[in-house]
């Protein structure tokens, strides 16, 4: 009897012991999840085998694969009407696919964006330094809060085979071809056609490797005044290929603008107005003296005007999803924007030129506000990208809009 008990106890115990001790996955280390520079070549060689591969500089990549017309149009799927200037051969939107097979096509760069400004929610910009000069490229990825996975300062390498390169409102980007027929858009009929679309999240994850841990210190920032800037870029580029190419190569550039202040103005659908609304939450609060009032959850970008001591201007762009959206502009308070000009300093951000209506270009209707800079944060919120002092050399202390204080 006792022998039987032992026998069956053993029978029970054996699988228990065997299976309870079966290995769980071990915790992954940094070495498991980041590619080391030293092993990159070997990985790419193994990945491409006899086909070989090439890592392109970003500008070289655009020059090689991005055409003016793009390859996505035909009689049945013509150009996007609104963004095509037949007279000058300007295409503000384009898409070119990259070969799926053959030699590996790679680009690499360090991410310069995060989502603190709410303007890079499903996009990022990578920077590559070539001969001491910045080269930058936008990447459109359908990953919500992509900056949480592909973080500021992270160097990545992307296998671009099977993806596409194109321009969205003249901004070059790595993308996929997407057909837009958003019937809910204003003037929707003019916007039908192929355009750069977001790379599907898992496709991007599969195509991308992270090289080492992020190091934001290796990001290069070009420091210059607005006046310097406008010596390097055309405020109103010419409606020709050269003008457009110059603009495109400047898109995504990370700059630190010196000696600037907020003018306390914004662009109200083409008209510059003062930010004199008091409630950024209200439906008519678009002109509030904060960085980005509510759009009632629509989410379109918001801009506030920067100026220097001269007549140079540049839009500072963010959105209501910015961490600092409801912070008063430097110098602004519940009483208005009269003190804004007393605060001067630097604004660091991503430079961009956005235009989707080709007729404005062709007919010389550019107002200069196609350029903008998107800061990533303000002191205390994310990266310190806005650093200003008042006339007494006291640093700007950010303060958030408070409806109760407003009523006092």
């Amino acid at each position, binding site marked *: 009897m006792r022998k*039987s008990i032992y026998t069956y106890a053993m029978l*029970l115990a054996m699988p228990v012991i065997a299976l309870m001790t079966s290995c769980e*996955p071990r915790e992954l280390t940094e070495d498991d999840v980041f590619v080391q520079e030293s092993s990159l070549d070997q990985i790419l060689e193994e990945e491409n085998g006899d086909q070989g591969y090439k890592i392109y500089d970003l500008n070289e990549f655009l020059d090689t694969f991005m055409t003016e017309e793009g390859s*996505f149009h035909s009689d049945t799927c013509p150009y996007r009407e609104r963004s095509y200037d037949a007279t000058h051969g300007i295409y503000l939107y384009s898409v070119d696919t990259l070969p799926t097979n053959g030699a590996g096509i790679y680009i690499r760069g360090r991410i310069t964006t995060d989502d603190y400004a709410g303007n890079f929610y499903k996009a990022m910009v990578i920077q590559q330094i070539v001969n001491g000069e910045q080269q930058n490229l936008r990447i459109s990825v359908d990953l919500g809060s992509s900056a949480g996975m592909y973080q500021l300062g992270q160097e990545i390498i992307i296998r671009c085979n099977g993806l596409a390169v194109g321009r969205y409102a003249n901004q070059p980007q790595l993308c996929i071809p997407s*057909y837009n027929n958003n019937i809910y858009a204003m003037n929707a009929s003019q916007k039908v056609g192929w355009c750069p679309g977001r790379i599907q999240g898992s496709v991007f994850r*599969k195509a991308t490797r992270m090289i080492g*841990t992020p190091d934001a210190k290796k990001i290069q920032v070009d420091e210059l005044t607005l006046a310097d800037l406008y010596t390097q870029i055309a405020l109103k580029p010419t409606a020709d290929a050269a003008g457009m190419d110059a603009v495109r190569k400047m898109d995504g550039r990370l700059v630190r603008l010196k000696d600037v202040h907020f003018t306390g103005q914004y662009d109200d659908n083409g008209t510059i107005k003062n930010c004199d609304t008091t409630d950024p939450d209200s439906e008519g609060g678009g002109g509030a003296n904060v960085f980005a009032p509510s759009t009632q959850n629509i989410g379109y970008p918001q801009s506030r005007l920067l100026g220097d001591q001269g007549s140079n201007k540049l839009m500072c762009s963010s959105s209501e999803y910015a961490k600092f959206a*409801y912070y008063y502009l430097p110098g602004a308070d519940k009483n208005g924007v009269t003190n804004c000009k007393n605060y001067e300093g630097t604004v660091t951000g991503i430079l961009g030129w956005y235009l989707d209506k080709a007729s404005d270009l062709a007919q010389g209707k550019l107002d200069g506000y196609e350029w903008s800079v998107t800061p990533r944060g303000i002191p205390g919120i994310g990266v310190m990208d806005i650093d200003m002092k008042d006339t007494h050399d006291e640093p700007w202390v950010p303060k958030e809009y408070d409806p109760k204080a407003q009523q006092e």
Partner: protein
Amino acid sequence: MRQKLFSLMAVLMLSVAVMAQTSLKGRVIDDATQLPVVGAKVTLANQNISTTTNAAGEFSLLYLEAMDEEMLIEADGYVVDLQLINLLENQVNAMDDIVLKQDIVSQAQDEILLNLTEEEMTDDEGRSQSQASSSSASTDVFNSNTSFAWSTARYRNRGYSSNVENYYIEGLNFSSQERGQFNYSAMGGLNDASRYKEVLNPMEATNFTFGGIGQSTNYMMGASRYAQGWKVGAAGTNRNYKARVNATYSSGVMNNGWAVTAQLAYRFSPYVDNKGIIGEGIKYYSLGYFLTAEKIWDNARLKLITFGAPTERGQNAAVTQEVYDLTGSINYNPYWGYQDGKVRNSRIVKSYDPTVIAAYEYKIDEQQKIKAAVGYHYSWYSNSALNFFNAPDPRPDYYRNLPSFYWDGQIANPNNETSAGQLFDENGNHYPWGLFIGEDMKGVNLGSGFVGDDGNLVGPSVDKDMYNNLVHLWQTRDNKTTQIDWENIYAANYANNANDAARDTITSARYILERRHNDIQEANASFNYVNEQFDHLRMTLGVEGKFSQGIHYKTIDDLLGGNQWIDIDAFADRDIKELASNGGFTQADIINVRKNEVAEDYDPIVKADGRRYGYDYRINMGNAKVWFQNEWTLNEVDLYYALQLNYSMMQRSTNMLNGRAWYQTKIAKEKALAGEEIDPAIYYGHKAYDQIEAAQAAGQLKSGTTYVGDAHHFLDPAFKLGANYKINGRNHLKLNVLAETRAPFARDAYISQRVYDRVLDQIYAHDNAKSLKDFYAASEKVVSADLTYEFNYPIVRGRVTGFFTQSWDGSELNGYYDDEARTFVNQAMSGIGKRYMGIEAAAAVKLGTYFTLTGVASVGDYRYTTDANSITSAENGMPMTQDKSTKALVFETKDKVLLKGLKLSNGPQANASLKLSFFHPKMWFADVTVSYHDWNFLSVAPSRRMQGLYTGVRVDGTDVNGWFGDENANAIETTDGQMLRVTVDEAGNAMYENAVLDANGVPVLKYPYNLMTMQESLAATNPLNRFLIDASVGKLIYLPNRQSVSINLSVTNLGNNTHFKTGGYQQARLPRAVRQGEKDYQNSIITANAWKYPSKYYYAWGANFFLTVTYKF
């Protein structure tokens, strides 16, 4: 000694001069062990009298009529035995031992059913998606042939939710007070522990509880019920776990009056990464123990019972049809991914339910008995899940990761389409090239647009090669696409660590694996007194008491490489500027004040050490019942009635000082101080936060203190009565009627119980009642009746039952991501009416010596009979909208939910099966069952049926930001000038009654826009796929010295029907689009793209087997 059914027995006559009455006595024993069978039911069919065997297997029946009788002997786990006997007048008719043969097939089926039910517990709180009926071994022909055979289809008895069923163990109520459901994981794998039970049909007279509209089950676990000896077994299966070993020892009743039984059962499966098989990505370890001891005296017995089953198991999820199609498997599981080359499931359930019970029975005399029991049960139940903060959604089947997402932009608005098929934008401009690209992903020419099933024009919006690439990744089960990408999750956290170090900041990890705990502890007691002193009358008095505490909190299982986690609500942080900037209000525990992710005074969680975060609250629940039942047994009719008074209470307390709740309290107080009108119900129940403020004012605010909210007390009466008219011994007509009120379950009573104490408006009305109507405002009212014709002949037996149940004022709680508010919301519905009506029929026909043919059918109509009232509020405390006139922020919206006429989604409503059973006296068993199931309906999302979606204005008068349809199409005008946007559905049916207006002057909807809201049938398109075939075969082999070996193979879904949907639900998210433009056209609208968030489905497993081998000695 072999027994033959239907053989006429010669009854031995004993001349007992002193007994001047006719009686019958005998003993029931097990065929294999020759040991007594305890608790066997012995029934004389013609006289309709029955009794059960005692610990020695003995029975006796007194005061009988001398006549030819049919004696039916039924016992759990045994083949039903029917014997014809001749009762001699004024004699003690003593029988030879009645030998019952083990029914190894039903034993195995019980085991499968128990496991299936446990595995169906799919959600965070152990709630089953569609719990199988729990009772399998039943002597009722209908129940015994439906509980297992229809469990694959998730049939539910009479269409009821499991929370109306009553589960008892030794007379103690073990249904959860929080949800009303029974936790099967407590008995995981312990098939012997759950073997013996009484299962009573709805509303029947019971002797252990008042009962209700659902079945009542009482598990009996006394040690003396178990046959003496050892039983060891092993099982193999291809279900979620792969193997089981178990051993049971029972002492039998020893000379000292004690009996002891113990069982150990271990079920296991290592991680499985074979894609496409049952249990993919799932591991399973469960060790169950069961120990029961029973002491038997002449007039009393004491039972001591304990059991539990520490279990760790992976979960799987319902997914959309697209995912099933892409992966080519109904077994796809999105919860797992590879880590270090090994499978890791993100959803691991850990459960352990230690239970102790002491039960005492005392026979005062032959006519009076009492039973008393006390019990304690602690249920640890938790499951893990990925949580993320400012990072991409890690779910592989997230809608944006699927090919269908690229069809989203391609949906035309049918209201903008002219008869010529041309389309125009909102400015009247014609789309010059049509809306659609020329080819679909298969290269099929779509012309100017492909007409989908719903009549809309569709087509993918990306390049065909890109689309095909994504499809290919899914079809080939690419690991980074179709499974969780653990590597990138770790990488995001390590990157965050590096950036923190570089910036000298402390920010939250991007991903963590959290554990959501939903524990419950309960202590219960019962007392039961039976009096049979009066002829033909049995009186039963029952008293039950129970105290439960639901314990809900979160901990972190794994920081996944991250340095720390900051306990703030991500949605609140994003959406409520005032919360985000006023230190601490976004914190789940405001003691840990932080500001804007800059290290100040907060206390991040830096290791997975069990520290609670997110929420930490308890629901205290009390319950006391007194019930009384009288049963009269007369010659032609049996009658009974029963009354019950049920007191219950619930009270929430919190150990965390949630910043959002405090914020809302402050707003309420400020409004009240400012003399503004506030809805008293909204801010009712902030007692706990008053305590917090007081503590703060006194400088005594500290973490870990418990703050107790208001208690809510209910008193619910119930009444039932029934009659059994004995047409003759073989034909009975039974009628049962019940009326009761039922207090809401705590789960449904609180609108956002993770955050604060807000209860349903009806509970507020109840708590402040000045009338009887208000007092019962929160309680569900139920009336029910059934009528049964029962027949019992030697060749055929069965029954036909018609039933009808109507309920009013029910309540339900839902939570979902709301695209209008762009945050997670809780939606509490009340005032729900439901009706259940139908017919059950069953007949078992003997076909010669070896075969029995059983036919069973249940056809019902279970539906909502009223619309519901709803309150919707954001979990993060953000305002839902603004008042259109005052522009004041509205934190809760109230609306009508158009449920009337919808079918309940509690399993198939039309079911039939035919079963052919074979039993050979040489102990061969076999059966094959063919079942047909139909009328199974998708669970609708109330969010898609809110009246405001169709009228533009909610019942509370607030505007809906985004309606169906287009503003210029088919608009009609209300009395206040409010424009309605949709007047006909896509089939052209008028949506409004003839200008019947509601309080807002809005025409009352006849039924809503069909495209978004239609209730889908889950029945397979091909009728042949609505059939399921089960089969089993078994053999019991007798060995010398009372040893035996039984082998049983049960195959479910033998035909490998992989098209059988068992359930599913509409996603609550509504597809929205932004109406873009330079200025005036900025608006968020609901699109007609019904499949952007398509429904998710559960499928029945394909062919699966369960092989058991048991050795008894």
